[in-house]
């Protein structure tokens, strides 16, 4: 193995496993205690980078659990799921699964769904700007072919369905929120996450609309997605949904 590769492998091991630092000592100038103190700076940087990246993506969870506990979550998450990209905006995609399995947050079973919501918001922030689209083109589709329409939703749009009131929890933790803080934990909620210009909006979405949007986002044509929604929710009203979604520019095109 080339020397540099051995050195970097030993260095990486020493950063990730403090008890396995001796392998790197042979490469480092100075005595072992000195070298270990200096390696500690890099270990702290590593955790700080994870904390910073996750804090940017999950600001509500950070508020909910507190900065100190969140730092511990970041360290534990990074230990099991180290970053794989030089772009820290990519770090944290599986934080929801980590939270679902992490024993010290089991008293907050809604945390993983809140994480999914925040990750969707994080992705929507940097999603492509919605292209211009003339909604009148939809009216020109032959009625017999309408069920084959596949909508193009605005880039970054996501629906997060949860048995917990995740939209409520998200809302009361937003900067500038001035309302009251009660939460009814028995209310299931679906979150619609979408960009409005440059602003990411998170709004509650009825279960029927959520079922339709989830099917449509998964690539199903209009007819199949509507049928899927109607099967579970006989009150699903496609016309009403589109009458809200199109002016809000949540739809930005379709294919046939």
């Amino acid at each position, binding site marked *: 193995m*080339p*020397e*540099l*590769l051995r*050195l*970097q*492998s030993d*260095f*990486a091991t020493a*950063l*990730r496993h403090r008890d396995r630092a001796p392998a790197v000592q*042979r*490469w*480092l*100038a*100075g005595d072992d205690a000195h*070298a270990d*103190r*200096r*390696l500690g*700076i*890099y270990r702290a*940087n*590593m955790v700080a*980078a*994870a904390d910073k*990246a996750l804090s940017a993506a999950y600001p509500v969870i950070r508020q909910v659990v507190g900065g100190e506990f969140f730092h511990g979550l970041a360290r534990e998450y990074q230990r099991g799921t*180290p*970053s*794989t*990209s*030089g*772009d*820290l*905006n990519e*770090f944290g995609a599986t934080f929801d699964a980590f939270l679902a399995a992490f024993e010290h947050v089991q008293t907050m079973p809604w945390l993983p769904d809140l994480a999914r919501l925040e990750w969707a918001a994080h992705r*929507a*922030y*940097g*999603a*492509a*700007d919605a292209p211009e689209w003339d909604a009148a083109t939809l009216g020109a589709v032959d009625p017999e072919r309408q069920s084959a329409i596949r909508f193009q939703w605005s*880039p970054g749009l996501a629906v997060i369905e949860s048995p917990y009131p995740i939209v409520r929890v998200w809302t009361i933790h937003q900067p500038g929120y001035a309302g009251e803080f009660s939460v009814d934990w028995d209310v299931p909620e679906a979150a619609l996450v979408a*960009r409005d210009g*440059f*602003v990411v909006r998170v709004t509650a979405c009825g279960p029927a609309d959520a079922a339709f949007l989830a099917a449509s986002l998964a690539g199903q044509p209009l007819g199949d997605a509507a049928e899927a929604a109607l099967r579970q929710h006989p009150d699903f009203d496609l016309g009403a949904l589109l009458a809200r979604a199109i002016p809000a520019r949540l739809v930005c095109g379709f294919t046939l």
Partner: protein
Amino acid sequence: MTAATPPLQGTGIGLRQPHYREVFERRPELAFLEVHSENFFLEGGASMHALERARAAYPISLHGVGLSLGSADRLADEHLAKLKRLVDRVEPALVSEHLSWGAIGGVHFNDLLPLPHTGETLALLADRVDHVQATLGRRILVENLSAYVEFRNSEMTETAFLAQLARRTGCGLLLDINNLYVNAVNFGFDPVERLAELDGATVGQIHLAGHTVVDDCLVDTHGSVVCDPVWDLYAHACARFGAKPTLIEWDTDLPALDVLLSQAAQAGTIARREVAHA
């Protein structure tokens, strides 16, 4: 290799999110704005819009922190592809990266880790810099690092290493005066002697920043004003190399914009004074 825009002169600051609005409203007189490339590897949205506004008003310096030029196993071509897309979109005045590594075996530390200064490392870095410059279709600048450990197998100083890298690849150097000072204290060498190892024509940009003292070690935190020994070393560099585009780097505990502007003004004053006396 040709630059997209004429060479820069003067001082700039980093454009960070809390200052977006004030910078766009006040339009302070600055030679350029610097951003971290990776913060703009996005398809669209508010950050990209802010960068476009900044680009319309100022030359941009793209400073990369995640390419990991010195990883022994591989260069992340997917990362380089994102940088290429950003460079094509922004047409920056300068593109820079670090003499460092940050990833091995698929794990990324998202840090600027030091390299041993050996012939093996030099051959690797020369290949990587050639590849990056060919992919981007332009010259890049490579920055000296602040470090907290030194390697026994190093065969030359970092500055001698960088001088050779510049000769072999045609890349420019980003001389970070604070990093040089931090290392001089941490490892006990004379930074002025190290500057003498560089060819001024290869220095394409200078960085100035603050650091923190932790126990027996200076840590490069970019969270405070430039200290007096770093200003003195900057004056020495200006006298030796001539005025170079100079950045005030500040990434943590961001102060009021005016603090950055006053640091930038101080750098400008020193550069003019030293060049006039040279």
